[in-house]
């Protein structure tokens, strides 16, 4: 990703400064400095690199810098593994960033474009992490509709840094200590900005639809959930296969549905409640485990609806098969509950 950006910058097709850093901690720190200076900033990372910059994530979020970052979801050491799972970003859900999860390469591109617009909205001003499944989306080929500059201009206005930038006429301190009497007020404002992001996401998706004809659906992407009795909640690239399985189950009379979570922060609680309120039973399939607890996505979903079954799969790039997904629906029908490993 950054290699391609380096080409764009060097051949002059992108008017940007490319900063070579010695670490991910420095990458995000430099992005934060540049954002403070008043320019649009982007960086990308993955896995241990994301954890290495974890400290800076909270600085960037609390400092309200609208940085956009793509994270290739990959497994965490130990044991070492270079393939995909979602433990990296899910372990950092609380860092104050917007977190979206793409299903395919087109959505990665589309989300990234919208991410700038959403993060930079004056009422949001929160950094945005676009997550894509390592290997399945990063190391495979897909045909992608690449937008023209004119199209992008229609959905992404020129950068407006707002007040949060260095100003020599009106110098300020950016970032500071806030003791107990002030601390919560900053976090509350940040939290409210995240909640407000739903309106901005909605507007961005409407504009996006008008320009590109592709319609995205906010926090969740519900498939055959309206009358579904058994719903599988999941995220990322495995969702397509889950939908296929739901289709074939429907043919044999099982009322199956799939709910793909597109955003985890802000958390689409209302959308989840609405879609899942009539489901008989709900399972969550995720490439993550919070050791000694359950999957993080499951824990979040269960705070909204009484999801019973949590299936942990795809860790370290393990394949998830159609038969295994069908098995999850069977487990739901059999009334199984708890944490189950594929």
């Amino acid at each position: 990703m950054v290699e391609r950006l380096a080409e764009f910058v060097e051949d002059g097709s992108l008017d940007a400064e490319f900063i070579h850093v010695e670490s991910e901690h420095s990458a995000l720190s430099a992005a934060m400095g540049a954002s403070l200076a008043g320019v649009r900033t982007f960086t990308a990372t993955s896995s241990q690199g994301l954890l290495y910059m974890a400290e800076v994530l909270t600085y960037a979020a609390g400092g309200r810098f609208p940085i956009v970052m793509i994270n290739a979801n990959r497994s965490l050491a130990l044991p070492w593994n270079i393939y995909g799972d979602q433990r990296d970003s899910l372990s950092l859900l609380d860092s104050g960033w917007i977190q979206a999860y793409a299903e395919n390469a087109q959505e990665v591109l589309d989300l990234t474009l919208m991410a700038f617009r959403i993060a930079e909205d004056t009422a949001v001003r929160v950094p945005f992490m676009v997550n894509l499944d390592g290997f399945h989306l990063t190391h495979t080929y897909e045909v992608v509709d690449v937008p023209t500059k004119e199209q992008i201009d229609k959905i992404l206005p020129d950068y407006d840094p707002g007040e949060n930038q260095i100003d020599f006429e009106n110098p300020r301190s950016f970032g500071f200590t806030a003791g107990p009497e002030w601390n919560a007020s900053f976090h509350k404002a940040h939290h409210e900005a995240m909640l407000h992001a739903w309106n901005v996401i909605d507007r961005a998706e409407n504009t996006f639809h008008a320009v590109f004809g592709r319609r995205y659906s906010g926090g969740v992407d519900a498939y055959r959930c309206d009358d579904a009795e058994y719903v599988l909640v999941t995220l990322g690239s495995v969702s397509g296969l889950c939908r296929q399985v739901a289709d074939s189950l429907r043919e044999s009379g099982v009322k199956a549905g799939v709910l793909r979570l597109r955003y985890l922060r802000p958390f689409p609680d209302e959308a989840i409640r609405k879609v899942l309120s009539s489901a008989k039973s709900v399972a969550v399939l995720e490439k993550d485990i919070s050791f000694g607890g359950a999957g993080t996505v499951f824990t979040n979903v269960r705070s909204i609806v009484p999801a019973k079954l949590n299936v942990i799969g795809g860790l370290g790039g393990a394949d998830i098969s159609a038969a295994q997904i069908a098995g999850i629906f069977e487990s739901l029908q059999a009334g199984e509950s708890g944490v189950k490993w594929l």
Partner: protein
Amino acid sequence: MAMSARDLDKREFFFGHKACAGCGGSLAVRIALKVLGERAVSVLPAGCMSAVGFNFPQLAFTNNAFITPFAATASVMTGIEAGLRQRGIDDFQVVGFAGDGGTADIGLQALSGAIDRGDNILYICYDNEAYMNTGIQKSGLTPYGAKTTTTPYKGSRRHKKDMLAIVAANGVDYAASASIGYLEDYIRKIEKAAGITGTKYIHVLAPCPVGWGFKTDETVDIAREAVDVGAWSLREYENGEWKLNREPSRPQDLELYMKRQGRFKIEKQYQEENNYAGE
């Protein structure tokens, strides 16, 4: 034209902060900003100077200033410099004020990265020779024999890292050591650094009465004596050349310098082991 203490900017850029009485670090920051003026953008990692200067709503910097992660002084400076340049602004100086821990220990990698890129920044390390903000723990710049809360009885068994040699080896464009006891020299070096395009590093000795164990009105005197007895040197590195700016005037008084400070009072039973000639 060379600036002297007399024609420093009358305006204050760092005041109303919560530093202890007699704090050497706050003097280093205050003077540097008077030299650099209102176009300076200050970058401060975790450490005493950020802790005392950024207490919302009591904010002590009157220029643009930003608090950074402990390890990230240099990389944040890089980003600011690149961002301002991208906006077409060119008359500014990004200046970092990082402690010894923030420089020689956790921030060394980012500093090396910035030097490697040749970023146009001025990095100032105010060296109080320990992690003061968190309670006087030993850093890589704590001198041999100095007691800290993590070298509680015998004092540090290691000598200070030579930061100037380190940044020189990394290929820095300009490096200098200074002391708040020799203000004219410090001022001259800041002014000189500000006139150089490239990565500049100034390492200023900034005694801390709390951590070193001396009276609050002795700070400048101790900082001066450190140079006079040869416990600290005023050096410059430029175009591959080293220059010693001042010969120690009374090297025989090193022991006196140490005796004035509580941190070098090593308990009797450890003195011999420490090869310490004190009482």
